[in-house]
């Protein structure tokens, strides 16, 4: 079947089969290599995307169910001001990821900050477990998300003041 959806701000269409996973369609069909499909069971967090505004593991989403919805992958999110805040905040806190989990961690931080602009350390830690990896120490992640929140707040205040 052919489905249409909005991918990173653009109207697109794709031919999908019933068993196709959204992660495979995004990766193989659209070349979005930031969507990794490692565990295929929703545990590793490497394939997180925003689907209709919610953060979901795309390996567990049947591709056909994306019909008519809006999908944002890390490649699309990287075009936003919010992404720049997060990357800068991570750098401020000295977070050095292995590279493989950086996208998912950014997506998780984005989803968290969308819901809670000033998250408590425990909330940050709980959410960051959605992108498990051995590479980053938890203290740095807390500092990083707090630094992002600070940056984001400053940006919004600056805009409001203009």
């Amino acid at each position, binding site marked *: 079947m052919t489905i249409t959806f909005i991918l990173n701000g653009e109207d697109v269409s794709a031919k999908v089969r019933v*068993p196709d996973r959204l992660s495979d369609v995004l990766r193989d069909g659209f070349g979005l290599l930031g969507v990794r499909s490692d*565990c295929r069971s929703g545990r590793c967090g490497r394939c997180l995307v925003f689907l209709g505004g919610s953060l979901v593991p795309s390996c567990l989403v049947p591709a056909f169910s994306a019909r008519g919805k809006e999908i944002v992958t890390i490649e699309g999110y990287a075009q936003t001001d919010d992404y720049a805040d997060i990357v800068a905040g991570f750098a401020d806190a000295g*977070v050095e990821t292995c590279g493989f989990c950086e996208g998912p961690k950014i997506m998780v931080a984005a989803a968290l900050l969308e819901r809670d602009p000033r998250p408590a350390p425990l909330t940050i830690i*709980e959410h960051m477990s959605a992108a498990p990896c051995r590479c980053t*120490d938890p203290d740095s992640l807390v500092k990083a998300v707090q630094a992002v929140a600070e940056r984001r707040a400053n940006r919004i205040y600056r805009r409001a003041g203009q």
Partner: protein
Amino acid sequence: MIYVQTVRSPVARGSVRSISFPKLPAGYRSILPADIPGRNGIVSFGAEVPILAQDAISYAGEPVALLAGPDPLRLEELVAETKVLCDSVEPFLCWESFSSEQVAVKRLATTGDPELAFSIASSVLEATYTSGAIEHYYSEPQGAAAAYDYDKIAIWSATQWPYHVRDSVALALGCKAQEVSVRPMKLGVHLDGKLWYPSLLSCQAAVASVVCGRPAKILLTREEDFLYSPKRARSSVSVRSALGRSGELTALDIRIAINVGAYAPLAEEILSQAVLVCAGAYACPNLRVEGYAVKTNTPPMGAFGGLGASHSLFAIEAHANRVAQAIGEDPADWKSRNVLRKGSLLLTGEPIKEETPYEALLAKVAAASDYRRKYAGYELVRKRRSGRSDGPIRGIGISLAYQGAGPFLSGEASNSYTVEATLNKDLGVRILTSAAAGAGGVVEVWRQSAAEILGVDLEKVAVASPDTDQAPDSGPSTLSRNVSVVNRLVLRACEAVQKRRFRDPLPITARSVHRVPKPIKWEGGQVSGAPFDTVAWACAVVELELDAATLEPRPLGVWLCVDGGKVVSPDRAKSALRASVADALGTCLAERFEPGAGSDPSAYFRYGLLPLNRLPPISIDFLEASGKEPVKGIGELPFDTVPAAFLAALSQASDSALSSLPVPAATILKAMEIL
């Protein structure tokens, strides 16, 4: 591009009778051992692992055939429809007690006169400590891709050992090594899980590519990777100790059994390392150790955050804590009396050349954690407690270990470390090494070392891709060897360039090759040689609380102090150590599984990293280094120290003698009831 998927053996031990493939659509084909143009096996440290099992099956899930085709989903279906009929034989699964045909490697060493020391000892204490299998949970599952690139076959794989991939593929294809070009991909966090296994997958991809005449890619799913790739080997270490009248350690009798699974590809190295450090940080004049690497019919087991030392260090530290408790002494004091000092002899007969930093480490870590007061307080509570408490109960434990870093002790990898540095006309520096840097900022350490020696800006120093076509063989890369051995070669190569700098015209290129001054030799129950280039020390304290109702341990804090020589980037090193402490705690609280005779997919779903919200505050500190100390490998120290400290804390809180991690609540309850 074609995809490759693996047809696996359904039995743990036996032989293949037949393989029936379904009718394959056009563009799909099967690959059997007979299709391999060269040798059907990869060689690692003297052991050979078949690319596709032909005559004998050694573990459930062993590759017996490959299916290649353009659609991975269709391939999944075809693999599921393939029937593998095997003649099954009773598998070897026991390893703590084992038959002689299971012994892959044996190591014996004796110093002093242990028999006499035990016969006159004031007290003797004996216990056995076990370590479980641990999944590396690396950043990305294992995989490889292969394709012809003009007259060469190119391999893309995330590997710690590019030259091993090159040589293995050349053997498998029956071509010259120079006809294979390995282009290593980003490794991420590997924890020594990508040493030899990528070579196996690279051979499978290369064979598929040659047989099908198209670029081929094999990528394991997380589940396949979990079930069939190497994990940390399981171990059982029995320690019998003799004490003198004042509680001093006079003799040790240690027996190490390491379950290395099928084929035992890293057995020699893992066992050698485990045996060499079996006495841990303690001076012991009379020592007898026997070590066995035991083969079983489970997937090949391997290294994890170090190559075997952590098995022994966990056991000896757990035992030291138990000895101190048995004689009613604070473990920190007992350790202080028995620790290796300047002049103490190691198992190899080599004397310790410098004063060991235990006192300084202890002072720092004890002050930070308030260890002395807490230990005395919790001991008092433990002794006065009768039966199970209603409220949470606490414990605190301390452990000490050293990490030796140097080249591998065994096998073909021992002497193959080379680094090349070039100073170009634009004063840019190019470092060439096949050492693949994982996460942890190793490349920054190399760049900084080169920049300092040659007096150029950091931005001018580049580390080239570890492609085997251009980079010299720098041996198998592990985190500690990258920091110690490879960094030293970078320094030496840059020093050689600097010497010629104003004498010869630019560009100037120099190579530095590592020579092992005193290789390890095992002869007639004696071991000699200098195994390590650098030795780093650490002391850890873990405090925890045991829920009286659920008996679930909850760590309250971890304090780690490290003597790591010159620390190039303290913030980065602290962050990396904190992440490793979190991983080490995960192995104490959550991560364990028991590979058995069959593939148990549910094991994969039961296994997971410790959720970050279960981690306590983690404090990392360094001893100040004197000016000329070298950069030392420190990445393994959390795995060497934290589990033993955790076990000591848990034993104190539960007032029981525990000997393995993680400990299920039922085991704690049983141990508490026995006592």
